[in-house]
């Protein structure tokens, strides 16, 4: 187990390095760098000299391998550089927004789990009845409805029934928990519905599979109440793949927030990403992609470890 853990940790390094190279090269292939975008956007006549000076200031005049080396060297000591657009440290720009996106992601996960596990189990227990069909349609619909559209419908509904408009500013949870939650519950719901759809389907199919097992028959044969058979014998064993799906989707939630944040006017990671990509703010985009990729890989790894911890039959080598 220890060897497996170390192996996996070591394997993260080349993968992340690959992500770094890929995003670095992709950005440099983009037509027009940040200097051109900033100066030529205003339509002003700027001399080549000024452009060259600005490039030198941002370090864009160095050979590309040296730029990459500088960036990597910075990351190793925990320095992500400064935003090429605002000049503020990348870490400052990201951390406050990450807090918001992370909170929405966690709320969405909780909502999704609360919806998915009972619904999926019900669908499995009442397989091929109308209960099952309704739940299945609910789940497939969740995969089909774009979260940004659901978000707009939610806003429309809230406006219609409660005269509520999404506030323009964000209140952190430690300042005013009630205000914060009432603001973030809706984007969390918009994202969480889609998320729950995946998990509901997974719960249904694994509970169905587990119900076929011999130990379920044994439990029933020895006269255990059906309720206990389901809760103790079936559910506990069916939760493993569900945990995996929830874990894996969690990392992708951050990506899924890109569009939803736009709708709810939330200044989170997703919105920042769209802004910085269109501005060709290299340092910011690189840092954001690395952050999300690291997050994804680490969550992936934790899910595998959790898997082993929950199921003693699983032994990694």
């Amino acid at each position, binding site marked *: 187990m220890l060897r497996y853990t170390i192996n996996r940790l070591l394997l993260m390094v*080349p*993968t992340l390095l*690959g*992500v770094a190279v*890929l*995003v670095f090269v*992709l*950005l440099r*292939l*983009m*037509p027009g760098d940040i200097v051109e975008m900033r100066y030529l956007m205003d339509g002003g006549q700027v001399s080549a000299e000024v452009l060259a000076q600005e490039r030198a200031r941002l370090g864009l005049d160095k050979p590309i391998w040296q730029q990459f080396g500088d960036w990597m060297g910075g990351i190793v000591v925990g320095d992500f550089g400064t935003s090429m657009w605002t000049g503020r440290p990348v870490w400052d720009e990201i951390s406050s927004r990450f807090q918001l996106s992370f909170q929405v992601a966690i709320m969405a996960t909780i909502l999704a789990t609360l919806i998915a596990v009972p619904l999926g189990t019900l669908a499995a227990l009442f397989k091929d009845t109308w209960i099952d069909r309704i739940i299945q349609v609910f789940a*497939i*619909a969740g*995969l*089909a*409805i*774009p979260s*940004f*559209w659901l978000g*707009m*419908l939610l*806003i*429309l509904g809230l*406006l219609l029934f409660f005269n509520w408009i999404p506030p323009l500013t964000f209140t952190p949870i430690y300042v005013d928990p009630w205000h914060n939650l009432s603001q973030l519950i809706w984007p969390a719901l918009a994202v969480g519905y889609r998320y729950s759809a995946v998990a509901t389907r997974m719960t249904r199919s694994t509970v169905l599979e587990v119900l076929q097992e011999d130990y379920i028959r044994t439990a029933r044969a020895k006269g255990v109440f059906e309720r206990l058979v389901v809760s103790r014998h079936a559910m506990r064993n069916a939760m493993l793949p569900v945990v995996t799906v929830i874990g894996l989707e969690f*990392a*992708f939630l*951050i*990506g*899924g927030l*890109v*569009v939803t944040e*736009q709708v709810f006017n939330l200044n989170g990671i997703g919105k920042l*990403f*769209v802004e910085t*990509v*269109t501005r*060709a703010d290299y340092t910011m*985009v690189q840092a954001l*992609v690395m952050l*999300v*990729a690291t997050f*994804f*890989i680490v969550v992936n790894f934790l899910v595998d470890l959790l898997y082993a911890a929950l199921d003693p039959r699983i032994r990694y080598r």
Partner: protein
Amino acid sequence: MAIAEETPKITYKVPKKRHPVLQFAITQPLGAAGLVFIIALFIAGIFAEYVAPYDPLELDYGAMLAPPSWDHLMGTDAFGRDVFSRIIYGARTALAVGFLSSALGSGIGAVIGVVSAYFGGRIDMAIQRFMDILLSFPIIVLALAVVAVLGKWPIGGLDINLIIAIAIPMIPKVSRVVRSAALAIREMPYVDAARAAGYGHTRIIFRHIAPNVVAPFLIMFTAFIAQAILLEASLSFLGLGVTEPTAAWGLMLSGTSQEFYQQAPWMIIFPGLAISLAVFAFNLFGDSLRDWLDPKIKI
């Protein structure tokens, strides 16, 4: 004596040999319903000129933000354009982008998967590591990056680079599923036989292995059409996909719609419904196709 007369007549249910399409419709009614909707969408998209009552680009400043009526079934947008007509033309955009990008993505993914499984060893290892790297990008982030890098490359009103951007995130997923299916095929005696007969790698890959992974390929292909339509809508919504004035569902939800949808909700309700129903239909069809062809495959 009497016993023989009372022997009930036993009738055996002989399964009739039905046409596969009919058999699919009977065993998978939901999937068949999805298919019918998809076909209807195709007809609407192809014959948009005849189905749509208005020109989707025609501005009508006399009827801006008009609510649904007999003149404008789904109302008009902020420029007075007919929402229903734009949805019909949007079907063309969505289906073209969905089909082409899914064909491209699952095609390349399938070839990579089969090649990776067939050669095994270092090649497999290298390919799979690269796929891991692609997989650690959230889909929309990867697509956004590709769109930003490639810019636009319109051919016949379609942005080819957008199709490429949507196709790339599919490649690692398809290649994984196809690879695992191909790994089993590689061990089959007939592959050994083909090798012993002296056939080249290309022939073995395309003639002996590829035909046997068609089922997972088809399932992934239909599933990804749905995802491509959704991704195209998201990118267009963010202003990085299809651009004005082309009619596209995601685009209809952005721009002026963002300003006015609280006064004119029909501007967003119908396009969103179109996206949801199209994706829903493809998902239903894809799920049924999976149950029908190969229930063991997990996507």
